[in-house]
Every structure is written in structure tokens, then in C-alpha cells.
């Protein structure tokens, strides 16, 4: 049985997928995951999920957002004057970054 492994580096961070392990049950999966994925890199917590329980939908089946040009949805599309609040600037930077990665995809 295959278990997908999600590792969280620090308290409060996101659990991100980092690989999978073979194991007969959940307890063994936790043990294997701890050794394979928590031994070398800083780890705060690990989730193991049976692969069969994961539903997947990919871009052959559905048109995901973020690939067509909908510039009206981006903070970067609006030119305003004066200094923006720091959190607005941060949001705009994150959006500019996402927009750039869309161009690369």
C-alpha cells in the first residue's frame, strides 16, 4: 500500500507534498515517513495519506484559472498615486510574482 507524505518544516507552516512510502498500515507509514522524509531536513510534523484516498483532477480534464489573461483581477493593473499601505504593496508583489510564473508556464 502506498502512502503519500506531506512534510511541515516549522510550526504554523504548510504541509507540502514531499514523496511517498510503501507501508502495510498507517502506523508503519508514519514510521517510514519519519525516517525517509524527516531525518535530514528540518521537520515539525508529517502527514501520511493513503494514495487511494487522494482525488486528482488535471489540466486535461478541466480548464484551471490563472492561464488566461484576466488582467482586471490583478492589483498590478491599477495605477494609483501616492504611497500604498505596506500590506497592499506586499499583495501586489505576490500577485506580480504569480503573474510572472503564469507567463513562464
Amino acid at each position, binding site marked *: 500500500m502506498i502512502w503519500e507524505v506531506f512534510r511541515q518544516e516549522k*510550526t504554523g507552516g504548510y504541509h507540502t507534498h514531499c514523496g511517498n512510502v510503501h507501508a502495510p498500515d498507517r502506523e508503519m507509514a508514519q514510521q517510514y515517513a519519519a525516517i525517509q522524509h524527516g531525518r535530514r531536513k528540518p521537520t515539525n510534523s508529517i502527514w501520511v495519506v493513503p494514495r487511494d484516498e487522494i482525488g486528482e483532477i488535471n489540466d486535461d480534464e478541466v480548464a484551471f484559472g490563472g492561464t488566461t489573461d484576466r488582467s482586471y*483581477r490583478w*492589483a498590478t493593473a491599477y495605477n*494609483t498615486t501616492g504611497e500604498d499601505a505596506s500590506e*497592499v504593496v506586499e499583495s501586489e508583489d505576490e500577485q506580480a510574482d504569480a503573474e510572472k510564473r503564469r507567463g513562464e508556464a
Partner: protein
Amino acid sequence: MNVGAVKERAGPREFSPADDLPQEYREAATRMIEFHANSEIMGAYLERPFIRQAPSIDRKLAFSAKVQDEIGHGQLLYRAAESLGVKTREEMLDDLANGDGKFLNCFHYPLKSWVEVPMISFFVDGAAMRRQATLRRTSWEPYAHAMDKVCFEEGFHVKHGEDILKELMTGSQKEQQMTQEAFEEWWPRIIQFFGPTDDDSTHHDFASSVGLKQKSNDDLRNAFLDQYIPKAEKYGLEIPDEPRIRERDDGTYKVEEGDLDWDEFFTIAKNEYEPGVGQINGRKHAQEAVQWVRDTIETDTTAASGHAPQAAD
């Protein structure tokens, strides 16, 4: 964990559903996040008619995207609140419909015309974003994660709102005058967005001591004024004489709290302000009108998993 231990450990994103947390923490966090979620939903309902009334196709596209975002924020936040195990999503939505659910003061007022739109989508959203940015460091991890996504999207809302304000304030004399009038009407409410002064805030001390809340009402209000008074002035809006706002020597601002209508504020807080009651009921009716959609989805899900016989069988 007892409350003492929670206070000791409290830090940004410190607690997750895996932790054994005392009821006091769970209830305080639920109250705060449920209020936030309800506000997203009620704000979206308030703005929704302006998708239709938007003056151009660009505005319509952007505004409809924004309203959709806000509903999504509500969904994210109900999940973050539900994960505390105090109330289910259904209970929170039912409470919102029956008038028990609380939400932001600004969304109890009617939004009558397009010139009022930037009062919400620039000033209120700007105020909300000041607050939300600090909540990325809240101690309830699912709440902080929801704030990551909300803040990512919210920058567009504020910039678009500002763009509408700019367009109106560089438009005809009539438009400028109507916008100024809307600003005068909304300004005190916007200042009250951050709630009563710290001395009168019921829930602040506990929420702050367990790391749920990161900044006090007064600090947030001042941070808002520091940032948004210069913006308003830049677009040619005149700040109303009341409430009196004093500029301190260091360039920051202080509001004369006695100039604000706190009776109205607390009537609103009890969901007893007439226009707000209308908006709660309006959403309830909209919710009931599309009950058939939810029923259809539920029925379809059962049928697809093969347990219920199909009508054609």
C-alpha cells in the same frame, strides 16, 4: 493544555487542530473568526448589486471577480472557524440567517449609489487589509493560513477601489461633489470599523493574551489613519470636521472618540439597526431562493456514489 500554558506558548501560528486547547481559547477564536467570515459574506451581498450597476464592462468584470473573491474568503474562514470544534459551518450560516450572527458595522448600512462603492472597496477594504495583514501572525494556524490567501487577493480589491475613487475624483464637478458627500456620510463609520476604544473593548484582553489578536483596536485605527488620510487628501477629498482628528507631533493621528455615535454602533452590534436587519433578511431570502441548488447537489452526490436508485431505474 490549560489557559496558562496557552498564554505561555502563544505565538504566531502556534496552535493547530492537533493541539489540546481549552474551551476558552476555542470559543474566543470561534467568535472572532465567525465574525470575520460573516463579514465577508455580508460585504459581498452589499456589493453584489453593483456588478449590475457598474458603469463599464471593465468595472463589471473586476467587480464581479471581487465579489466572487469575498464569498470565497467567507468559505475559507468558516473552515478555519469550524476546525476549532465549537460550531459547525451549518450552525454559523443558520445563525447568520436568523439574526444571531454578528458582522462588521459598515455592512449594516445600505449602499445606495456607485459613488459609495469606493467607500467600501477602497476605505473599508483598506482598513480590513490593515487588520488582516496582522492576523497572518495569529496563533490559530488555520486562521493564519486563510489570511495568507485572503491577503494575496485583497490587494487587487483595494487597488481597484482606489482606481474607482480616482476616476470619480477626476471626473465632473458633480461626480466629485457626490463622492465628497458619500465620503462624509461614510467616514465616521469607517473610523468605527476598528471597534470601540481599547478601554471599552470587551474581548480584547483575552484574545490578545493568547495570541489570537495581534494589535489593539486603537493601534489599528491609528495605523489606518496614518496611511489613508494622506490617500484621501491626495484625491481631493476633504476630511469632515467631525469626528475631530488631531495630528500628533510625530505625524500620527488621534481620534476624538466622543465625537462618534457609539449608541448607533452598539445597536448595530446587537443586529438591531433597521437597515442592517433588512440586509440580514435579504441574504436569508437569497439563501432560501437557491436551496434547490444545494438540494440538487446533495441528491446528485448520493446518486453518483451508487447508494440511491436513479429515477430511471
